[in-house]
């Protein structure tokens, strides 16, 4: 090989490395609130990640179109994680200091959440893990920087059992019933197990655990086992292709779909679209919202954002389940900033610490939610130092073959069972990390 070509290649490599080092932006505008957006638009979970990301970004654009957060404009930047923990960590490191500092991170992945839970406190950036992440992070006295707003997997498990109990005519009628949990073999899928085991001791039902190895493409053996043991109900805790594969195998083995209940991450359009009419009757949890095409916020966004050609994704997607999930996640972040501004200065850019206080003191009553356009979609959310979850409501939605129908009944998680479990687990984490519980004085800061 010629020396000249070698030299050229070496020079290019050196230039590339230098360019790499200079990736920090040349300017840091303090006049804008920076929202990093961790997304997965590629890879195995893209069909679920894309609508969530579109909803998130659309809401940020909507807030900007309406004048920003009390005049402060939002600047955002997407970073592709492909649902991989190390890419998520790299995105976090890259974005945490940009544009004057990240406001809040929402990883949409339990794996990345675990890794960032270690790093975020050191960098003083709050994490919102709405409906996923660590169930014990609802305990704000230990997990100062984590906010599993609106629900965790333990509230999900409890509400599912409540609903089943209601169907059977009372929680005492659950005695002797068989419930099978078909779950994704990962921290995400394993998280509800302690709760379900605790509830089985309480109510006397039989819990069968059926793990499905990632990515969950091959489930024939699982569903043959379901056919053999004939459980009364099957809880589905899957993500991505595992959901539709489970439904298809249920069809192929003849398990009635109306006895299947999915968690709120197993109840979106990409999961059932492919199965169509065959999945009719399949139920899933709706974490407060279902598909909400008729809500005021959706109509506003279609008008203000999509109407001006600024929509991030296709118009048909607006209002779908995961789109709404992303929308609401963004909304919670923005409301956290707004609340922080009430204390630290209206119309000013908020730091991560200030936003953390804001998220810890959210007081979104029904009036405020209705004014924001979420009437009939959400119920009040109010967080506190000890409770970083804010609300534990959910509804049941059912697939009718063409779309999801959300039921009218609102369930609330039974904190008498959940709180002790959360405390024990959080204490264990605190002991491992050799950190003490927060003091009440610390709550005021």
């Amino acid at each position, binding site marked *: *090989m010629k*020396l000249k070509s*070698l030299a050229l*290649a*070496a020079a290019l490599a050196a230039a*590339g*490395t230098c*360019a*790499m*080092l200079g*990736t*920090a932006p040349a300017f840091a505008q303090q006049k804008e609130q920076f929202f990093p957006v961790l*997304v997965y*638009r*590629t890879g195995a979970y*893209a069909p679920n990640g*894309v609508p969530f990301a579109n909803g998130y970004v659309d809401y940020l654009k909507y807030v900007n179109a309406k004048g920003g957060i009390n005049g402060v404009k939002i600047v955002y930047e*997407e*970073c*592709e994680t*492909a649902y*991989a*923990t*190390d890419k998520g*960590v*790299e995105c976090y*490191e*890259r974005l945490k*200091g940009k544009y004057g500092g990240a406001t809040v991170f929402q990883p949409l992945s*339990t*794996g990345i959440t*675990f*890794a960032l*839970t*270690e*790093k975020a406190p050191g960098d003083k950036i709050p994490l919102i893990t709405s409906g996923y992440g*660590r*169930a014990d992070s609802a305990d704000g006295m230990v997990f100062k920087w984590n906010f599993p707003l609106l629900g965790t997997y333990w509230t999900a498990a409890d509400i599912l059992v409540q609903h089943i109990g209601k169907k059977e005519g009372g929680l005492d009628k659950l005695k002797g019933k068989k419930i099978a949990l078909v779950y994704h*073999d*990962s*921290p*995400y899928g*394993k*998280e509800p*197990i*302690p709760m379900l085991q605790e509830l089985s001791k309480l109510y006397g039902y039989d819990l069968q655990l059926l*793990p499905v*190895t*990632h990515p969950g493409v091959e489930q024939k053996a699982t569903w043959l086992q379901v056919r053999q043991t004939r459980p009364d109900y099957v809880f589905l805790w899957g993500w991505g292709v595992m959901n539709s594969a489970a439904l298809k195998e249920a069809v192929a083995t003849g398990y009635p779909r109306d006895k299947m209940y999915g968690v709120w991450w197993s109840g979106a359009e990409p999961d059932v679209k492919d199965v169509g009419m065959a999945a009719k009757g399949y139920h899933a949890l709706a974490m407060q919202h279902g598909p909400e095409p008729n809500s005021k916020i959706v109509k506003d966004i279609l008008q203000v954002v999509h109407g001006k050609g600024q929509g991030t994704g296709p118009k048909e997607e607006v209002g779908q389940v995961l789109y709404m999930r992303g929308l609401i996640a963004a909304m919670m972040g923005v409301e956290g900033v707004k609340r922080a501004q009430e204390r630290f200065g209206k119309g000013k850019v908020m730091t991560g610490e200030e936003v953390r206080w804001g998220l810890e003191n959210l007081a979104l009553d029904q009036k405020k939610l209705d004014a924001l356009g979420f009437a009939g979609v959400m119920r009040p959310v109010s967080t506190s130092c000890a409770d970083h979850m804010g609300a534990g409501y959910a509804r049941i939605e059912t697939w009718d073959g063409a779309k999801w129908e959300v039921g009218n009944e609102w369930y609330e998680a039974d904190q008498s069972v959940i709180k002790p479990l959360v405390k024990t*687990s959080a204490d264990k984490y605190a002991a*491992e*990390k*050799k950190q003490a519980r927060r003091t009440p004085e610390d709550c005021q800061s």
Partner: protein
Amino acid sequence: MLYRENGQFKTSYRSDQQIFPIAQDRYLVLALIAFAFIGVPLLAPEYLFRAILIPFLILSLAALGLNLLVGYCGQISLGTGGFMAVGAYAAYNLFVRIDGMPAVAAIVLGGVFATVVGVLFGIPSLRIKGLYLAVATLAAQFFCDWAFLRIKWLTGNSASGSVSVADLSLLGWKIDSPADKYLFCLGFVVLFALVAKNLVRSHIGREWMAIRDMDVAAAVIGIRPVYAKLTAFAVSSFFVGVAGALWGFVHLGSWEPAAFNIDRSFQLLFMIIIGGLGSIMGSFFGAAFIVVLPIFLDNLPYLFGIPIDTALAAHMTFMIFGTLIVFFLVVEPHGLARLWSIGKEKLRLWPFPH
């Protein structure tokens, strides 16, 4: 002109057998190591440490281990992710369950556990060869994946199967800042690279290379295949296990079994093939290529100020990555290390034509 050996006379066996016989090489490497220990912590921004240097160092250690097995001994193994997981979880259990266990000891002992598992899964190599062995080692990978998800005792009986470590320290020096972590990993890497280089220059290394080149002929002249292959698996798994423990302890802090899945195994194999099989330097080149290139490609649109949709950017990264792999293989099948040595050869003549 600069790179001549004129005037460098070796007057003892020791100086003739040193790792870098040419003085310029020696000075360059020593300067590089000095810069790495002293210059980089002073100059580098935090992002560089956290996102590039620390992953690069840890993965180059793992690539080094895998190169010993695949490049020097010729046994293709795809179970590397599993061995990293064994190292990480063993170190975790030792660190958390035994009070007062120093972090370094936990990490090294994690490597020892990985060695045991590596030798166990290396036994099939005595009978199976080539691509068949590669696929058979996937059994190790998937078994480890399963074990760390299912056996609760191994993950500290945590509900989710995720574990975390905190408070690393070495003889009173608290390792919490990114520069500290970088220096901790650098220490391990320099030490292990020295060990590896000396191993491959010794009789064990020669046995490995003989097995790689012609295992039947090697057996004929008296090299015991059992000993050679299993020591290769053992040493390689030790390196890989230590790297896995560092990955969990230093880089991630809190991890789940998916951090060591089959994608990790493939990534390491890519590194050593691109970097150069059978070359210590090659492991580092390959690790740098695989760690830095995707980040560079991800950032490229922003450098040029072109706002590209993230999905398209990610897809372009994949395509360019794949194309570059094929390009490098076509241009130089023996990897970047070969390009480096060709460069050095040319440099010895420069500026003269011959």
